[in-house]
């Protein structure tokens, strides 16, 4: 399928500035892709994302699933001969995708939102209520149900959350100016 993507010649420099990572140094040895544990599940591989960023292919990059699948394991950054850390680059690309109204990978986004809501509410993550919120958000109610029950029976998931005393301080930390976490 041929897709016309918008070209933005400033994109590479913007991503480089935003992430603090010298992306324009990449000479495409593809070591990052070779070592990436999740590359097999990505639409564009890590090295391809770097190349697309260099080439100003903003739409292709910000609408890719790859930017939501990077788990930040830092394998690529550790091995890069040009000291390019891709994990902070992927972080910056996710922020730009959200700000630009590009659709995130729904389940990954739903989990992160539910997780951050839980911290704002309690100061720590309360797994059970966080998971319930995630299930409602992602509209995927029944997957992993048996596993969850197993963990509850082993006493590894607590029913009642604990709120830390400094929760108001934690809520203040959420006022970062980012619409993603403030709403």
């Amino acid at each position, binding site marked *: 399928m041929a897709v016309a993507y918008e070209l933005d010649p400033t994109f590479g420099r913007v991503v480089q500035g935003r992430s603090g990572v010298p992306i324009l140094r990449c000479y495409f040895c593809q070591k990052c892709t070779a070592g990436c544990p999740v590359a*097999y599940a990505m639409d564009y591989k890590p090295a391809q994302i770097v190349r697309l960023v260099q080439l100003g292919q903003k739409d292709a990059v910000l609408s890719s699933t790859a930017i939501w699948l990077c*788990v930040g394991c830092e394998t690529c950054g550790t091995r890069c001969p040009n000291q390019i850390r891709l994990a902070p680059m992927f972080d910056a690309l996710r922020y730009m995708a959200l700000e630009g109204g590009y659709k995130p990978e729904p389940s990954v986004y739903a989990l992160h939102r539910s*997780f951050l809501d839980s911290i704002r509410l309690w100061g720590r993550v309360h797994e059970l209520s966080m998971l319930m919120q995630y299930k409602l958000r992602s509209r995927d109610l029944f997957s992993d149900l048996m*596993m969850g029950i197993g963990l509850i029976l082993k006493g590894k*998931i607590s029913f009642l959350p604990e709120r830390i005393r400094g929760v108001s301080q934690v809520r203040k930390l*959420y006022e970062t100016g980012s619409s993603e976490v403030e709403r």
Partner: protein
Amino acid sequence: MRFAYYPGCTIGTTAIEFGLSTDAVCEALGVELVELEDWNCCGASSAHSLDHELSLRLPARNVALAQGTGLDVVTSCPACYQHVLAADLRLREDKAWRREMEEMLGFTYDGQERTRHLLEVLSTPELIEKVRQRTTHPLKGLRVVSYYGCVLVRPPEITGWDDPEHPVRMDLLMEAIGAEVVDWSYKVDCCGASLALSRSDVVITLSTRLAQAAKDAGADVIACACGMCQINLDTRQALEEKVPVLYFTELMGIAFGLPGVEKWLKKHTVDPRPVLRERGILP
């Protein structure tokens, strides 16, 4: 030896056996852990996925809580460790941000307290000698692979206490308790981490590959140092005959002959007790 202790959210829940065995082993070694008062979640993968500033502010509060104690902060969770380190680094280097955080959280940053991972602390030459002396029930004949996962030794610019591609300090600790350390190529390969629920297919693939590789190397068990690695491998490996995954502190507790071992081992999804009995390590 005293440390401020930042346990992290999973230590009382999904990684409860990590928490219990950490407490017991540290007590046995005379390592005192003083829990940080009123600590908060570090933001884990979710904060840095959606908001960079928040991902540094949340762990900065924990750095703030440790100021003035004069104690290095020890954490058992590699994600907490990585995020607290990153926040500490920014407090150290970015003066404007430091002032902003000091004002917001009401503390003074003195930069005396370093952040360290539990494995780093327990695998110094001094502690390894102590571990050797304390070992009353050596894990003779138990074949162990050490599994570090992703961010415990990466990025090396901020961790720096073990080799990022071929770390060995967990091996040294396992040798000290009498286990037979088996070499394998997957020590620092990621388990899929936070995709556990949102893309469980990825985590199933990665965890199964890791468990299979451990088996191919001839390992009886996998030793790990991360609550996320442990639960992913323990619950997601899709093998017929599964490989038990134990925290390195649990194996130490067994070798020290500590009471409570049975209670930790019961928490696992893949029960490690049969293979431990087979090797004559548990009665």
